[in-house]
């Protein structure tokens, strides 16, 4: 991504560069597939049939394709939650916690206001509260960064654990569903509080929320002055400050927006999929979203695609267990290998300044 003020160096045409990039990525992924094949062989599975089964069950089954979209919804939002702050040069590892807090915020609407509102209003409120909660959670880290210069990567990471403990406290005690089966969970959402499904698929409207968010983030980052200012701060905070930009406000707002996006993800998962807060809510989605954003180098549309790809790998992991009798953890290895491949070889090497 060249900045507007630096003249594009002469070289191969842009399409060739892009093609090379894609080609490299494909080769990297193929490399990962081969290495994973070796793993599978070590574990007693036949790589060829395992991959074929994985392909068949993941990409040719309507059910699986739907599952990919279902899984991708919160992942895309969690990834965008990393993208926006990254534009400003901030590292948001707190997706995990912001997702959970978003779920809490959305659930709070139901717990506090109950059934006293028409359908559309309930869902909008849940989304707003979810986003606000996520923004608040990210805001804590942002304020610590601005006020006391504590690196936000550390604070967002620590806050992840606190968020999970907060949720567990709520579902084991004040918000526990007393008419349920004794399992710690909030009471189930009534149908008015659930996001409607798209057609007769299992994919909820939450997916559309994720798409809309992607478009909105893309537009905001590339076409608004706020987005431009974020890039300036991210590129060179000192220069930005000297140019008169209010760096603190920009950094804070980028984190708030990031947190809000993740909070929205928590809302879509609660209202569209789970309908209850349970232990393990969206566990690891924050970290995988983080990886998706870095994988796509924080370009919003590519981030959404990367998140979808990672969702596909996760769904493909089921096939590894069910068709090839590989242990559940194998999918982590596959995902890691693919990511290493793309991180290592898939990208255009940026100009090395020592």
């Amino acid at each position, binding site marked *: 991504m060249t900045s507007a003020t630096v003249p594009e160096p002469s070289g191969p045409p842009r399409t060739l560069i892009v093609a090379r990039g894609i080609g490299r990525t494909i080769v990297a992924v193929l490399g990962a597939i081969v290495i994973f094949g070796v793993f599978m062989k070590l574990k007693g599975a036949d790589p060829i049939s395992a991959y074929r089964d994985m392909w068949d069950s993941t990409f040719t089954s309507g059910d699986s394709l739907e599952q990919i979209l279902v899984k991708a919804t919160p992942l895309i939002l969690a990834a965008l939650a990393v993208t926006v702050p990254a534009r400003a040069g901030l590292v948001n590892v707190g997706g995990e916690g912001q997702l959970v807090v978003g779920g809490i915020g959305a659930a709070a609407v139901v717990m506090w206001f109950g059934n006293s509102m028409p359908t559309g209003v309930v869902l909008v409120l849940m989304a707003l509260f979810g986003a606000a909660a996520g923004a608040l959670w990210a805001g804590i880290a942002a304020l610590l960064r601005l006020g006391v210069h504590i690196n936000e990567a550390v604070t967002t990471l620590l806050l992840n654990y606190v968020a999970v403990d907060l949720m567990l406290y709520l579902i084991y005690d004040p918000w526990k569903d007393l008419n349920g*089966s004794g399992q710690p969970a909030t009471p189930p959402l009534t149908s008015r509080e659930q996001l409607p499904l798209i057609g007769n698929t299992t994919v909820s409207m939450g997916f559309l929320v994720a798409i809309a968010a992607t478009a909105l983030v893309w537009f905001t980052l590339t076409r608004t002055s706020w987005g431009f200012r974020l890039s300036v701060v991210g590129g060179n905070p000192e220069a930005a400050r000297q140019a008169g930009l209010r760096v603190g406000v920009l950094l804070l707002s980028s984190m708030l927006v990031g947190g809000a996006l993740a909070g929205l993800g928590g809302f879509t998962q609660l209202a569209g999929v789970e309908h209850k807060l*349970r232990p393990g809510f969206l566990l690891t989605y924050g970290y995988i979203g983080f990886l998706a954003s870095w994988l796509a180098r924080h370009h919003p549309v590519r981030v959404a695609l990367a998140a979808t790809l990672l969702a596909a790998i996760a769904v493909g992991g089921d096939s590894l267990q*069910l068709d090839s009798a590989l242990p559940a953890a194998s999918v982590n290895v596959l995902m890691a290998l693919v990511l290493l491949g793309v991180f290592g070889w898939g990208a255009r090497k940026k100009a090395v300044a020592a």
Partner: protein
Amino acid sequence: MRTRWMTLVVAIATLVTSIGLLTASATAVPAAQPGQGSKAVGFIFVGPKDDFGYNQAAYEGSQAVKKANPKLKILTAENVPEDDTAARVMEGMIDRGAKIIFATSYGHLDAALKVAEAHPDVVVVQQGNFIKGTIPPNAGTFFGTVYEPVYLAGIAAGLSTKSDKLGYVYAFPIPQTIDNINAFELGAQSVNPKVKTYTVNTSSWCDPAAQAEATRSLLGQGVDVVTQHQDCTSTVIKTTEAAGKMTVGYHADASKLAPKGWITGSEWSWGKLYTDIVKTALAGEFTGSQYNANYRVGYKTGNNPFVQSKFGSMVTAADKKQIAAAKAKISTDGSPFAGPVDDQDGKVIFAAGEIPTYAQIEALDVFVKGVVGDIPKS
């Protein structure tokens, strides 16, 4: 004019034929019962199948099903979380031909019911929880009355302890755990009124470091018998044994880990029950069967899949007799929770002479008197 007539005739003819065909097919082939003739059976586990505890026992049950039905494909999935993901995995198994699914963890119930509703031709049985309200014709829950052998183990502990302090390491205050802890204390109390059970939770079903620290804290309070409700059990046992104290096991026979301190324990033996459920479903007899319910077996019904582990050498013959007598009483008209049972604040839970039902016991959400520890009160 003619064409319109012709069209009408053809249309009516088509309509009549179709209706004829439809009704013919409707009566010709009877609808299959849920699970009938299934080619595969699916099992989902909440943790890894090699945890030397809960999930391993369930896995071994699934392998017993395989042994009894060599032609049946057995699908297993580990580390299936207790949320909507479980529904997805079960659907995947159904896609691969499974018409009988076992959801083996407590928190899989919601997903299991969702799948059962979406697939009336699939039998979905869930291990450990309780379906409230109407039970769908193709679903059911099952469990052993785990707290019965735990009660007996409590008696053994109460007889063996010298400090009158017992310890319980647990994960979360779910009903199964609350019942276990209470039964353990009640059993120990029945032979040793002074005894107390100290509880420490680790907020994890298997976090060895947290388990080690919890055990040490209990031992530091003078506890000399330690037991647990965790998915993986070896750390607590090894830590207790290294400190020279006594152990009551859970989920698996770990007596070889505690050669000196092993009192007794309880362990799973799911094979028979799993196989029978599968047999019933395959034959199309699931609906209306005993499994199409909240099926609980215990000492009264005689086939509790949770059995008492063997005794350690420190348990005397007189002790064993006492325990056998207690077991006999439970098997007939008694219960570990037979009244009077009070809670920690002295309030009566079950009155004197009352014999609570399984449902009442599973609804307990407080600790009994003698248990030291705190859980959220609803």
